[in-house]
Each structure stands twice: as C-alpha cells, then as structure tokens.
C-alpha cells in the first residue's frame, strides 16, 4: 500500500502544508521571493534568484511537502527520494524567454543560464540539487490530468521498489502542489492518508483552489 506522508502547495496568494493544516496568505508582501525564501526553506538556497518562475514554485512546493512529511534535509547530504513532476505547458515560457533573448542578441550569443531552463525536467533538477534527492527524476505530461499521471508513475515506482520514497506533483499557472509518497513498509510515521484517497480527489478533475480545499478537508477527516 502507498501512503501519502505530506502535501505542500503554493498559489499566487497563499501557501501551506496539508497535514499541518497550514494555509498562509502572502499576497500583500512587498518582496515575493525574499519573503518566501526565508519562510519556506530551512536551509539557504544557493543562487535561488537565477531560477525561472516554474523552478521557484516547484522548489517551494517541494520544501513544503517535505516539511509536511517530516523529512528534514541538509544540503550535500543525499537521500534516495525521487521526483516525478508534471505540467501542461512544459518549459514553453522559458523556451520563449531563451529564444527571444537569443534573437535580441543578434543570433550570435545566447545565455546558458536561460538555456538550462528550456528542459521541462530542469525545475525538478533544481529541487533535487537543493534538497539532495538522488532517486529517479522525470517530467511527465499527458493530454488530460497530468497530475494524476505523475501520481500513477510515482506510486508504481514506489510499489515496484525503484525508490523507497518519491515526490509527485505539478506546477502550472502560478501554482504548484507536491505529494510525498512512501510504501507502508518504509515508514509508518506521519501518514496523512492512503494514496487512493488522493486519487479519488484528483479524479474529480477540479480547479487547483478547490483541490486544495478538498485536501484540507481530508486532514479533518471530512472527505
């Protein structure tokens, strides 16, 4: 059986942890990044400013999910935890940013630090580096319900023993959510719910905001 040990989420207005029942508004803060960085990352995030927006949101949601699951980390100390991330548009915005910049430079020079975010898996790579996650890492997309696809892949990887724990989630439209999945034989601590409970919510195909509301209800046992 696969259990969910923590869920972290962030939108343009608020962020939180499901098991902890946290829902923190931040839309009125002046400096979006510096405020969130100090609040969300327990360890300093090297070069966070150069990350693209999808990478930042992904890393925020992963930090919150790990905190929710009670998984601590120290940069440089690695753990066999994987990441499966999903999205609707991949790296499209970063592709546009890179190519426009290249054209603006007269098609002679391009910037490597923009190019690296033109891979859909790069935001997950940034998270793997900061949190020291050495398990399987891949990006997935599907015509319908990419988040459900990411959850399916992640739970099958854990079930088949490819990795003992995995983060699965999605970043899109200025919002991100990540779930921590583990097999019950790996850890019985901090279990929030069965993976099937999450699947039942995802199957409803609701908006991000409504999904978070349902997830928070799940903690209260109202589902």
């Amino acid at each position: 059986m696969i259990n969910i040990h923590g869920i972290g989420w962030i939108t343009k207005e608020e962020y939180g942890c499901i098991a902890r029942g946290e829902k923190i508004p931040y839309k009125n803060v002046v400096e979006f990044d510096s405020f969130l960085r100090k609040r969300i990352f327990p360890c300093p995030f090297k070069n966070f400013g150069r990350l693209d927006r999808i990478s930042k949101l992904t890393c925020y949601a992963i930090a919150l999910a790990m905190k929710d699951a009670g998984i601590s980390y120290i940069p440089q100390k690695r753990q066999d935890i994987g990441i499966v991330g999903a999205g609707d548009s991949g790296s499209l915005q970063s592709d546009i940013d890179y190519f426009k910049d290249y054209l603006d430079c007269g098609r002679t020079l391009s910037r490597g630090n923009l190019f690296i975010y033109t891979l859909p898996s790069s935001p997950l790579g940034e998270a793997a580096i900061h949190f020291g996650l050495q398990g399987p890492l891949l990006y997935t997309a599907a015509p319908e319900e990419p988040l459900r696809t990411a959850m399916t892949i992640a739970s099958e990887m854990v079930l088949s023993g490819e990795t003992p724990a995995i983060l699965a989630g999605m970043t899109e439209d200025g919002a991100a959510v990540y779930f921590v999945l583990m097999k019950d034989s790996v850890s019985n601590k901090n279990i929030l719910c069965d993976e099937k409970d999450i699947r039942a919510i995802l199957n409803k195909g609701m908006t991000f905001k409504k999904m978070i509301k349902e997830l928070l209800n799940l903690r209260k046992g109202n589902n």
Partner: protein
Amino acid sequence: MESRRISSSNKIKAVVVACDVVTAFGPGVDACWKGIISGETAISELKRFNTQAFQSGHAATIEGLKYLQKDSLVMQMFRLMFKKNPPSVPKDAKLILATTKGEIDLLEKKFLRGKGNASNANLRYLLKKVSALAGIQDSGIIISAACSSSSAALARGASMIRNGYSDCLLITACDSVTEFVYSGFSSLMALDKIAARPFDKDRRGLSLGEAASYALLMSEARAKKEKREIMGEIKGWGLSDDANHMTGPSRTSDGLIMAISKALKSAAVVASDICFISAHGTGTLYNDEMEMRAFHSVFKKRIPVYSVKGAIGHTIGSAGLVEAIIALRALKEKTVPPTVNLKTADDDAWGWVSDKKKTLTRNNAALITNAGFSGINTALVVG
C-alpha cells in the same frame, strides 16, 4: 494512464518485438548498424542554419528534412520511419513519447518567420500527432528526463509490463538539430569543433545529432501468443539523480553507480553477467570521465565499452532508445561496435574502449547508460 493491473505476477518479462530508428545514417536500424560497424561518422558540416557565431559548425543531421517548413523536423522523421517500416502496433497499445524539445522548430518559425504560434511547440500537440500516426487509441504520455528521456521511457514501459499494468506499449522518441538547441549547447561550450571523440585523450566536446526511434514492448506471453519475433528483453533498469549540478556530471559518479546497481538488481544479474556496456559517451571531458569512474567502481574486470556518439552524434531525447536498439542488435550479431573517432583512449578508458569492432564470446546481457542535465542517470540491462 490509469494504474490498473491486468495481471498480478511480478515475473512478467518485457520484450521488444519491433523497433526502428532514423538517424543521420538514414532510415532503418540496418543503415545505422552498418554505419557504426564500419567505423564511419555521419557527423558533417551543418547547413541547416548559419553556424558562424557558434562553437562548431558540425552535426549529424538527417538528409532531406525541410527546416522551418509546414511540418516540424521530428514529425518528418517519424513519417520517414513509419513509412519505411510501418510498425504493426495493436490498437490497444499504450503510448509513451520521450523527447526534450519535440517540435521546438515550430516556436522558432513563429519568431523567425512570423508563422504559426509559439504554443504549437507544446509537447502535448506532438504526442497527439504521434498517437494518430501510429494509429493507436491511447492518448499517451510524455516523458522528459533530459538526455536520459528515452531510456527513462523504456524503463517506464518495461516496469508497466513487469508489474502487470499493461502488456503492450509503444515507446517512441525524437529530437532534432535546430538553431534553438544548437545555440544553447554552444553557449554552454559543450561542442567539439568538428566531431565528438568519446573516451579519447583529446576529446573536446559533443556533436549534436538527431533521431527518431520506436520500440514496441510486449509481455513475453502476449508476444508468443501473437507469434511475434522476440528481439530481446528489457531485463532491468535503474534511475537516479546526482543531486549535484545542473549541467556538470558528478565528480564522484555516485549517481550513475546507484543507477547501475539498481539496474543490475532489477535484472537479477551480477556485474560479471554483463558482456558489454553501451555508454552515454558524449565526448565531453567530464561526462566520459564520470562514466569511466562508475564503470571502474562497479566492474572489477575490464569489459568492452563503446559509444555511438562519434558516429551519429548525441541524439538527445532519442539517445537512450537508439542506443538500446543498437545494443540489442550487437547482442544478436555477437559483435561489439567500435567507438567511432577514437584515436587514443584516455588513460581511464584504456583497455575498455576500442576503435575496432569486437566479436562477443558470450551474449547474455548488456548495460546501457545515459546521463543528462539536472544530473539525471539511467541504466538499462537488456538481453
């Protein structure tokens, strides 16, 4: 792709029953195999766009493709491949498409020619086209894991079969050489000026290549029931991440060692069962060094190692699948391909790599390794 088991056995074998490639050697596995075995390189002067400002002016491109025209380069490749050797794909097959940049030339076309829409480059549209072209009902999924994309997709497909979630999958992969991709690799100073020389003492960087490929996977039981030719088995796989650097490989190789160890365990084999390694072997200083360090750590005795990237270039998201197909062919032919463009093996690769093809005395299992940006590693055991 719902998680619904069609069987509960965990001993189901995932076998390859059909496959094909289109590379710079032209359409077909035969063309690619013959090119590599003869020690030729398909890397040549790149005429698709102006390369004067870049670190190199060479790549391994497929002849006859039209750039910035109606169809994207990768769709032209798929058409070429499916036209020459149409796969007999059951309608109930699941679809996985592995790529990094898919139809990125459609985005280029928008900005360079003002035609189309940048969002046409969304990978989901490509998935829909490939699904229609292959004539299957499944809407499919994309897997993107940098230069390990298609080996991760193969691992995913094999896992679905082994664990009873499906008994037939079409794994497809593609990436092309475009100005977008070329300028990016050039900006990272990753390119050899002329042609990649994997594992050579004087290697200077990689050469970009392009390819489309597919492999039809089935459970052994279904393959036998449908009287399909079994070309080989995906015996095991391991995926890991270095968690170290976005573009630079690990200086300790622990990520790749982990992936190889997981793959051997998954295949229920030991290191001595592996008769050769198809390495990622990009030709960059650090990648090849990282891989050799991992091989020295896992394999106590020297075994043949080769890279196909001196011949067909680095085909990015398609690399793992093309290399797995070539490795299966090598097992069938009992021949280890040469490492094209190798002149003097680097000290750590000496005795492992060769510029000559080699006859295999045993052909039980082969290892295929891939590594990509974000520190993603994959290892596959085929046999």
